[in-house]
C-alpha cells in the first residue's frame, strides 16, 4: 500500500525567504481543498472599499467553514460562535491588507485558527504537552492476544462516528488532528502556529490517531456486542 498520509516535505525549512507569488509556491493541501468561490473576488474588492453588503456576502460564503473549524478545535458551541464572531470582526479590520498572495479562504482560515489559539492561550490551556513521550501500545495499540485482524476499522466508520470520536479527544490531540488531518495543514505550519517543534507536532498527531483508533474500536466492539 502506498503511504497516503503526506503530500509535501514537512521537513523543509519553515520559512523560505522568497517573494510570495502564487505561481511559484507549491500548492498547499489546505489551498487545494479550498478552491475559489464564484463572485468572491468582486465581493473582496468591494468589501475592501467598505461595502457592508459585500462583507455580508463574504460572511455567508465562509461562515460554515470558519464556524466548523472553530467548533472542531474548541468542541464547544458557545465558544465556537464567539470566536467565529471575533474572526469575522478581525477580518473586517484587516481585509484591506489582503493582497491575494494566497487564496482568500486560506488567509481567512489562518486568521480564524490564530483567533482560536489566542483564546486558548488566554485561558491557559497547554496546547501541546511536551513531557508526554510516546508510550508504545499500552492501551492504545494492538495486543497479541486480541485477534486484531478481525477488527480492522477499514470500511467500518461513518462521518458521524468519526466526528464524535474527534470530539472526545483531549484538546491538545484534537487541535493537531483537526489542523493536520482535517484542515490539511503541514507539520511545519502547525509547529509555527502552536509554537512547538515539528517532531512534537508529528508525535501529537500520532497519539491523536492512536487514541481515535482506540475510541473507534471500542465503538465497533460495542456495536458487535449489542
Amino acid at each position, binding site marked *: *500500500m*502506498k*503511504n*497516503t*498520509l*503526506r503530500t509535501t516535505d*514537512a*521537513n523543509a525549512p519553515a520559512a523560505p525567504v522568497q517573494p510570495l507569488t502564487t505561481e511559484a509556491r507549491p500548492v498547499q493541501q489546505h489551498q487545494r*481543498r479550498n478552491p475559489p468561490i464564484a463572485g468572491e473576488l468582486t465581493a473582496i474588492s468591494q468589501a475592501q472599499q467598505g461595502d*457592508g453588503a459585500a*462583507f*455580508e456576502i463574504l*460572511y455567508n460564503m465562509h*461562515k*460554515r*467553514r470558519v*464556524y*466548523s*473549524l472553530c*467548533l472542531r478545535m474548541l468542541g464547544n458551541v458557545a465558544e465556537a*460562535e464567539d470566536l*467565529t*464572531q471575533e474572526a*469575522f*470582526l478581525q477580518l*473586517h479590520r484587516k481585509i484591506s491588507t489582503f493582497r491575494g498572495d494566497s487564496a482568500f479562504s486560506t488567509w481567512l482560515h489562518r486568521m480564524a485558527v490564530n483567533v482560536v489559539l489566542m483564546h486558548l492561550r488566554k485561558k491557559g490551556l497547554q496546547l501541546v504537552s511536551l513531557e508526554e513521550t*510516546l508510550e*508504545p*501500545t499500552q492501551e492504545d*495499540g*494492538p*495486543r*497479541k492476544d486480541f485477534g*486484531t*485482524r478481525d*477488527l*480492522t*476499522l*477499514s470500511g467500518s*466508520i461513518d*462521518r458521524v462516528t*468519526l*466526528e464524535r470520536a*474527534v470530539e472526545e479527544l483531549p484538546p491538545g490531540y484534537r487541535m493537531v*488532528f483537526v489542523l493536520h*488531518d*482535517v484542515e*490539511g495543514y503541514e*507539520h511545519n505550519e502547525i509547529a509555527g502556529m502552536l509554537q512547538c517543534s515539528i*517532531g512534537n507536532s*508529528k*508525535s501529537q*498527531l*500520532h497519539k491523536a*490517531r*492512536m487514541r*481515535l*483508533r482506540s475510541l*473507534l*474500536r471500542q465503538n465497533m466492539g460495542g456495536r458487535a456486542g449489542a
Partner: protein
Amino acid sequence: MTNQTTNASKECSKFQQQLPEFFDSEVSMSDQPHLKTCANCSALVRDLEYIAVQAKLLLPIHDPSPVVWQNIQSVLTKNLHNDEQKS
C-alpha cells in the same frame, strides 16, 4: 518461546516508536520490513491510514446561529458611529 515473544514485542515497540516519522517520510509504508512479518502492526498501520483518509472527508456541516451575524453587525454599526463621532 518466551524469548521469541519478547523479541517480537521489542520489534513492535521499536517499529511503533518510529511510526510518526514513517508516516511523514518519503518511504512507502509497504516497504517497511517489519510490516512484512507482523500482522498486528500491519493492522495498526492500516487503521491509522484509514483514519487519516476519513478525516479528510469530514466536511463542514454546521452553520453558526444567526445571532453570530447579528452580533457582528451590531459591533460594526457601533464602530461606525464611534468613528463618525470622532471625526
